[in-house]
């Protein structure tokens, strides 16, 4: 066998060995996997409906009073941990915290304006799991200018309160 043939055999053997070794080294006894997840911001009410009476006392507005008639109630909310909520009233399209909007109470014939305000009394959420309820206070106010000349009647309105997480 000539030297050239032997050299070719040697080169071929080395190449084969390299390929085989390469396949072997390309494999490994360990692997790493990156794992990821995202938790979004969210807020939801967890109570309601609620009712609120705007009054001076005894469920009545005193038309001779010079002071505002007021009322309040609460709703429970939960938010993603550390996330603050903001509110909308009757789908105005603008969320805020606190949020105030003038709504119109009616007896079916006569109207009376009232200011409704929603405040996140408890602040930021601590999660949306059980037991994480926070308190939102809904307050109502009617000024003497608005009830002073109102006809005697029961005035009411259903108000829809929206909630979302502050981005």
């Amino acid at each position: 066998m000539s030297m050239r043939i032997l050299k070719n055999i040697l080169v071929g053997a080395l190449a084969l060995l390299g390929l085989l070794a390469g396949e072997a080294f390309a494999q490994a006894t360990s692997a790493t996997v990156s794992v990821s997840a995202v938790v979004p911001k969210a807020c939801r009410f967890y109570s309601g409906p609620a009712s609120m009476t705007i009054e001076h006392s005894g469920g009545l507005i005193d038309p001779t009073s010079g002071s505002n008639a007021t009322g309040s109630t609460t709703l429970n909310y939960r938010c993603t941990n550390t996330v603050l909520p903001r509110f909308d009233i009757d789908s105005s399209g603008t969320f805020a915290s606190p949020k105030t909007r003038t709504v119109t109470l009616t007896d079916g014939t006569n109207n009376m304006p009232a200011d409704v305000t929603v405040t996140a009394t408890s602040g930021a959420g601590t999660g949306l799991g059980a037991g994480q309820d926070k308190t939102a206070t809904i307050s109502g106010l009617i000024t003497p200018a608005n009830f002073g000349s109102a006809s005697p009647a029961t005035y009411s309105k259903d108000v829809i309160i929206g909630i979302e997480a502050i981005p």
Partner: protein
Amino acid sequence: MKRLRTSPAAIRTTVCGYALAAALGFGTGNAFAACQFRAGSTTGSVAFPVLDPVTAPNVTAAITLNVRCQPAGDFAVAQWTWTSANGGTSTGRLAGGTPAYAPGIAYAVGIAVAGSGPNRTLTLTLQIAGPDYTNASAGSYSDVLTLQVTP
């Protein structure tokens, strides 16, 4: 200077030596690492679906890796283990959130190998229970799992 020439006999010896080394190389590889993650399966990434804290369902994510045991019978005795960079070996743990969520988000890890012959697929299945993230702070979370096979 006189140049030394390799004799044909010496060349033959060398060729045989490499051939023997190649054969031993396989034998040695099998002896110390019967099962391995195949090329292209030594790294990977997997993302959970968005963790909605409102409804907080159990969520699952999975990734498939290619593995090889030679001889194939070693799949029966192969031990597949894992460690979590943020956790341990009983549960993985995702770290992150803004601000950082101190407990992290725990997740379960399952390993299943399927197929036949020396080349098979390893499916890594990860699951987070709803209660483990419903109170987590918002933001991105991550971990690195290291999988190990013996022998």
